[in-house]
């Protein structure tokens, strides 16, 4: 059961209460949208669930394991995260970046070319990431997050900066991920438009650090 649980999650930045007690349980393989205005705490929630930032209080469970616990290494390897930046090294080419991530996770050689093709990034593969356009850079960031075939995928405003074609590919990837049993959490303040829309299993409404679930 590698769903996502959180119990009484709180996160304080000094006097600022970014999260004020979040409890949630998400079944494995579901595609969940985290909605909410700017400053509602979407990014903080995602970063904590993805094991990037410790909560001030409360616990996180990915497949029942705490990403901040002693034996969290095995869990961490199967987490994918895409934030506002691509998290890639500007001086290196896209292929070099992905090869670096692959060697961190011991992935096989074909994974990189396969993913570049899937996201139609092959032709820019050998250009330094800092020379790529905003749209290509966003797609490159998505490629990095998907590279390790994560069991839990966290995307923070992934549609920002994507053109229509790239948006469609993202929606396609989300659908494919859902079939493959991946648990995905996507934070986006606006409902992403585009043909067919996104088959959300659930939508969580976040408002100033608290959860208000809207519909199933």
């Amino acid at each position, binding site marked *: 059961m590698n769903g996502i649980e959180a119990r009484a999650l709180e996160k304080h930045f000094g006097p600022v209460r970014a999260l004020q007690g979040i409890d949630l349980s998400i079944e494995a393989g579901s595609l969940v949208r985290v909605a909410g205005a700017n400053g509602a705490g979407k990014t903080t929630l995602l970063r904590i669930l993805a094991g990037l930032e410790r909560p001030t209080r409360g616990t996180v469970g990915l497949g029942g394991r705490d990403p901040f616990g002693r034996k969290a290494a*095995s869990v961490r390897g199967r987490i994918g995260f895409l934030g506002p930046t691509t998290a890639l090294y500007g*001086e290196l080419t896209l292929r070099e970046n992905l090869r670096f991530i692959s*060697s961190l996770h011991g992935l096989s050689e074909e994974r990189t070319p396969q993913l570049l093709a899937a996201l139609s990034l092959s032709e820019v593969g050998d250009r330094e990431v800092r020379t790529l356009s905003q749209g290509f850079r966003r797609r490159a960031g998505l490629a990095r997050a998907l590279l390790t075939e994560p069991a839990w995928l966290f995307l923070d405003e992934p549609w920002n900066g994507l053109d229509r074609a790239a948006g469609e590919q993202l929606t396609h990837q989300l659908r494919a991920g859902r079939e493959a049993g991946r648990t995905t959490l996507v934070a986006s303040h606006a409902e992403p438009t585009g043909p067919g829309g996104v088959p959300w299993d659930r939508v969580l409404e976040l408002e100033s650090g608290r959860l208000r679930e809207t519909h199933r």
Partner: protein
Amino acid sequence: MNGPRVALAVLRKDLLVDLRSRDRLGHMLIFAALVVVLISIVLRTSAADARGALLPLLWIAFLFTSLLGLARSFQAETEDGAWTNLILVPVDRGWVFLGKAGANLLALLVVEAWTALLAVIFLDVDWTRAPGAALLAGVLGAIGLSTLGTLLSALSASARFREFLLPILLFPLILPVLVFAADITGEAIAGRALAERSAGALALYDWVFLLIGYLGFDSLVEA
């Protein structure tokens, strides 16, 4: 064991970024030359002085030069938001620290060799009297500096005054390395036997701080 694989991947990546951007190492080499020349001119050295007061000054020159490189250890991660790559690794993050420290070590060794060469040219220092001891001091000194420098630059990478912070944090802690290394090289140049006490203390120092770095880094990245 995939820990060392991760460390190696981080090391290779850092060296590739260094080669590709070429400025970090270049700056350090120019800066080192500048400092050595400055010392030589301002202190109106003669060959005789070189062995006496000047040699420890070389270590101070090397320390200041290393600051340039160490301060930028995590620049890419901080600016490009690439910390995620180093946090979400399927191993203990201490290996990431060792990879980073390794990349810094190689850069420091290059700068160290360069400084030694400058010493030969400008200060007539004769390293051949005890090359083994000089090498030992160089390697152990560079390890101590890269270990502490990497850990402290991770600490100060996101802080506001990080240009000030790194030297303030580093200098008092690195003092023993300078003393031990300067002692070993001093004895080596003077042709006397190896300063075992300093060599032993320096090796122990490196080991202790490598261990603290390895253990501490894990709870540092996802604070």
